[in-house]
């Protein structure tokens, strides 16, 4: 037990027991806290300065490595990009030299996506509602038409045969947009660089690729010609109803004149016989002795978009391959 402390009270002239000095205690406590905090700050600073945690160490080395190699990679990438740009220029120049037209940038069909993205929330619901109304309307319309036509017409076996005879296929199997080397109409003759009427389309392909009959019919011509001009080896098919198709510059003929062929049957292979500068098939459709644009007949495509892209592509004036 600590000894009592006394204070002299001058009013009563007596020694009295001293009470607990609260303010003293407070003072001591606060100064303790402040000193403790100061020590804490100093320790923190020192720790920060002298002690390195494993995380810090790894981060420091990682940052150093990353920033060092970023510069190197960037430099190398810049060098590659310079080469790439020069290659890209060469590519464009080559395209111009081969097709005599500029390369077209790839166009994406966007539809309404931009408007929908730009619209606000309320607009968006309006859009959706509009679309719903539209789809339901067209669905009803389609149902009505369907009912009308099914009431009117039911194709028999003979009709289906007739439908098969229309040249609606593409003469190549893996037919892509890139393979349409030259469309219908005015094009540049490769030999004298003059404009001339190109009566069919040129579909490029590797030598030996199969060529199909685009519709069923009867072979009227299967000619072999080894002169470097004209059609070369070519096949002509009479489909009936005034439709005639021609497949020129073939390498091999798998059919003979007078033979009947079905739609999609292999009739020959792609070559560059006749007046051709590269392996391709020159495909013509003649209706009632008039040349038609075969692109418009190739309706058995993946979808409307690819069909539209095809027709758009066939409009450019570029060098033909024969």
């Amino acid at each position, binding site marked *: 037990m600590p*000894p*009592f*402390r*006394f*204070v*002299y009270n001058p009013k009563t002239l007596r*020694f009295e027991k*001293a009470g607990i000095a609260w303010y003293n205690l407070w003072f*001591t406590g606060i100064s*303790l*806290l402040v*000193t*403790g*905090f*100061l*020590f*804490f700050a100093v*320790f923190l600073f020192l*720790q*920060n300065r002298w002690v390195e*945690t494993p*995380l*810090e160490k790894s*981060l420091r080395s*990682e*940052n150093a*490595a*990353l*920033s060092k*190699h*970023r510069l190197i*990679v*960037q430099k*190398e*990438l810049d060098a*590659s*990009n310079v080469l*790439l740009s020069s*290659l*890209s220029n*060469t590519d464009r120049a*080559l*395209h111009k*030299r*081969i097709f005599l037209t500029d390369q077209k940038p790839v166009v994406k069909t966007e539809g309404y996506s931009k408007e929908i993205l730009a619209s606000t929330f309320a607009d968006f619901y309006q859009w959706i509602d509009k679309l719903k109304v539209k789809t339901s309307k067209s669905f009803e319309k389609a149902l009505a038409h369907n009912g009308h036509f099914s009431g009117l017409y039911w194709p028999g076996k003979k009709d289906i045969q007739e439908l098969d005879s229309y040249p609606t296929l593409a003469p190549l199997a893996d037919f892509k947009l*890139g*393979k349409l080397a030259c469309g219908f109409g005015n094009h540049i*003759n490769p*030999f*004298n660089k*003059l404009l001339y009427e190109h*009566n069919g389309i040129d579909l490029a392909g590797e030598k030996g690729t199969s060529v199909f009959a685009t519709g069923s019919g009867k072979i009227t011509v299967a000619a072999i010609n080894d*002169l*470097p*001009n*004209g059609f070369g080896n070519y096949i002509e098919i009479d489909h009936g109803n005034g439709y005639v198709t021609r497949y020129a510059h073939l390498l091999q003929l798998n059919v003979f004149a007078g033979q009947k062929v079905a739609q999609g049957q292999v009739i020959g292979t792609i070559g*560059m016989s006749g007046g051709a*500068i*590269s*392996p391709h098939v020159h495909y013509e459709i003649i209706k009632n002795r008039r040349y038609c644009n075969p692109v418009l007949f190739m309706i058995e495509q993946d979808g409307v978009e690819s069909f539209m892209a095809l027709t758009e592509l066939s409009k450019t004036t570029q060098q033909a391959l024969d």
Partner: protein
Amino acid sequence: MPKIRYRYNPETCAYEPIFSNGKKLAKKSGVFVGIAVAMALVSLAWYNRNFQSWDEKILLQKNAVIRADWEILQERVNIASARLAHIESNDDENYRLLLDMPRLDNSIRNGGSGGHEHYFLTTNEKKLGLIGEAYKQLAKINNRLAVEQQSLQDIEKEIQLKEEMEVTRPAMQPIDNRQLTRLNSIFGLRMHPILNYIRPHNGLDLTAPYGTPVYASGNGYVTNAQLRGGYGNVIFVNHGFGFETRYAHLSKYNVIEGQRVKRGDLIGFVGSTGLATTSHLHYEVLYNGKFINPLKFLYSDMKQEEYNKLLH
């Protein structure tokens, strides 16, 4: 004035004032500092346990910035790769197809950088997959670029050859259509107007007034420019690729033997030398030594109906 405190001393039965000396003060302040330090240590331990140190924080921020830069770099690498892929697909799908060249195999394009170890990276840097991956991709792109450059050069050579073939093809009418008075299209057997017996007519007769200029129908070089019997003054032009053209019954030459001519060059003038009744140009086209109907190479100068009329 501070209050003086007293202590009751039971031995002397008196109140004695308490004086503080240095020793006591030192002890007191030592205790005070000790407590303060203990508090600081405890709070430091607590802080370390619950918070990251400042340096870690700063480093982490820096790390995030650098990693964002790396992401941009990665994106740039991807863009470069995509651009290259576009050129490659053009190369494969268009040029090589049209030029009748074999396609480049994918193993050639992507080969040569598969399990490549980057010896210059330290083990620490190797642990960061990011760097190694970037170098790998760059090496791949550089390899593809080199292949593509070579490939484009090959294609260019092939195009050169093709263009040469195109310009050497005798695809032009040797006399301007406006100066042409008549075109005799008989190719094959016919009665010779002077000799009066049936013999093959191997060319095309282009009737035009005396002195009308005659143009070379394609690039080539003159192998023969002299008087040759029934041909009269004749020019032989060798076009290469198996083609040869002959221009006969000329009145004058504009070229000498061995001279290179281009399509459209003036090589001579129409006359009636040799076995000819009137001034005209006798134009022949040979392919691999055989006569072929020159009409088949003139179709681009006339309309389809005219051409069909002439052929049949």
